[in-house]
């Protein structure tokens, strides 16, 4: 039986700074952007592609003839972004447009800052507004603006020092925001942990007891359903002594990370074994949970600070050999 409360969920952010090497076509394109210029590349059919492509989109031929194009261009198609989202070029409503720069044959996708959709039309003339600080990325183009708004308040791109090193890599931070949901079975398990209980479930087909319980028994493919309350004592089935320091480590090495098979469970889980010299931890060692103070409990296995030896005689091999 699983509980009637809705499954637990929590915000979950994933992020990574993608660092990419640019090579002989994208490198000069990025270098030019940093210097306030736009390069295109001539395709097999003589069309000039902006942004540059390394291989011809039709024939697949490697391309190498770079061509400088204008920072003025014409809107080919557009749409309106009324509520900008994270990472987009402008933080107020703006147009997305495909813009064919003068000297190019294919359009570039970017933002146009016009203030309102009424001020946008296909065929309108626009020009680049360069970012104040540039690093060799497409975001060095802050956005486009109507060409006739080019006044003294729209300074020309400041020329970069001619001896600046070519741009060879680009770093693109990617961050996604999700809401992670636990399964109904995991939620029951986590809510029990908040009360200091270890709640497993039995698969009704193979009789195996899983902690945490599962949305599907990996052997039988059916959800575990029958609740089984387990004690907080168990056996070390296997372990390793951590000697290597790493980012975010909370305990000074050496210490022991071990698989603990709770009494009555059919699957072991990873936890810490502390409270004795690391050299004394062994397979078959009997351990008991050391809980954090009750006021610190929440819906997490971290309520158990670590496992410590009970001092009982070691478990016989045959009691855990099947679970290695």
């Amino acid at each position, binding site marked *: 039986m699983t509980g009637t409360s809705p499954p637990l969920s929590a915000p979950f952010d994933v992020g990574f700074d993608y660092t990419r090497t640019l090579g002989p076509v994208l490198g000069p394109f990025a270098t030019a952007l940093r210097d306030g210029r736009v390069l295109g590349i001539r395709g097999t059919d003589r069309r000039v592609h902006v942004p540059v492509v390394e291989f011809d989109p039709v024939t697949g031929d490697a391309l190498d003839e770079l061509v400088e194009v204008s920072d003025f261009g014409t809107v080919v*198609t557009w749409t309106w972004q009324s509520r900008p*989202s994270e990472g987009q070029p402008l933080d107020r409503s703006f147009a997305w447009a495909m813009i064919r720069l003068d000297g190019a044959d294919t359009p570039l*996708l970017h933002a146009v800052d016009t203030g309102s959709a009424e001020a946008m039309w296909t065929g309108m003339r626009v020009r680049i507004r360069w970012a104040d600080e540039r690093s060799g990325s497409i975001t060095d183009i802050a956005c486009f603006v109507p060409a006739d708004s080019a006044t003294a308040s729209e300074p020309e791109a400041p020329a970069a020092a001619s001896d600046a090193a070519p741009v060879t890599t680009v770093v693109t931070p990617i961050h996604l925001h999700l809401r992670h*949901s636990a399964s109904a079975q995991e939620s029951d398990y986590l809510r029990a942990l908040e009360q200091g209980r270890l709640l497993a479930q039995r698969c009704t087909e193979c009789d195996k007891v899983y902690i945490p319980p*599962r*949305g599907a028994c990996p052997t039988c493919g*059916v959800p575990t359903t029958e609740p089984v309350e387990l004690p907080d004592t168990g056996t070390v089935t296997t372990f390793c002594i951590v000697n290597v320091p790493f980012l975010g480590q909370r305990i000074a090495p050496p210490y022991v990370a071990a698989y603990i098979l709770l009494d009555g469970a059919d699957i072991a889980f990873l936890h810490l074994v502390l409270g004795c010299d690391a050299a004394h931890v062994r397979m078959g060692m009997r351990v008991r949970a050391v809980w954090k103070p009750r006021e610190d409990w929440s819906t997490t296995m971290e309520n158990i600070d670590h496992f410590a030896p009970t001092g009982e005689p070691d478990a016989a091999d045959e009691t855990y050999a099947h679970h290695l």
Partner: protein
Amino acid sequence: MAVPDVAVVGFAEAPNLRAADATTNGVEMLVPLFEQVLDELSMTRHDIGFWCSGSSDYLAGRAFSFIAAIDAIGAVPPINESHVEMDAAWALYEAWVKLRTGEVDTALVYGFGKSSAGDLRRTLALQLDPYSVAPLWPDSVTIAALQARLGLETGMWTEREMAEVSARSLRDGATNPLAQRGHATDADALLAEPTLADPLRAYDCAPITDGASVVVLAAADRARELRRDPAWITGMAHRTESGTLTARDLTRSSSTQDCSKAAGTDGVAVAELHAPFSHQDIVLRRALGLGDAVSVSPSGGALCGNPMFSAGLSRIGHAARHVLDGRAEKVLGHATSGPALQQNLVCVMEGGN
């Protein structure tokens, strides 16, 4: 050795929901589907020779997310399994190839995704060129809106034609109990709605959907044992266009046209199209050369529910049902992937033994 014929013999789909009560690993949505489709065929999971799935780590927010879904199969003793990071229609392609080799005679293909866990439109920006486009985060509706205006302003289609596609889909969606959307409406009513991303209105865009689906394939005699009227796959092709969005003619779908030629789509009575935006339905119908007599997306199509990574597979399943039930002789299912119809797959199925 003769290459065996391969047929669709079973299909099941989860309810298309805005937000399913499920984890991102798909287990909760898949367990009942496997049970349903295998029961219908009087099979057990041990009768399946090959398993192949489509899903995405970006959607799930974790690496190797498809591994957890394998729990729903019960993978002990070890199974013959594969995965594509694409719509499961491409997993079906892989399974079809596997069956054609003669190595196995049954395959179960499944796709799943929980789009509601993240910000789908933003996540889909990551399929754009990573150097010159993705760093600007243009979302999937933006890309479709740019494509729609190109067609409108070059006279390829009109806003009314787009609204007629949406009205047809919504009316059909009302007849599909698993669809997310569907109601009686007409083009006039839809044209009165405000724009979401000019020129697209909300009804021009597929909703955000959580879901999953399953298709069972079988080869030659095994297919005949499992079904009186298997939906024989008589043509299958997939093609990809340039990854440079702005180097393509976005008002046409040359890849779909090439698929259509390779798969042999003449004479289909039903075409289930994976068109997440109304104008894309028009682009696809033209690329496939579908006449007025062809019934297009009678399930309601992607505009009534677009579960990422299973919506394309579901189109093949819905099309196959017309043959399995003896309602049509020749049908096609289409799937798309990538921005603005970049990649397309066409699967043609026919009745008769």
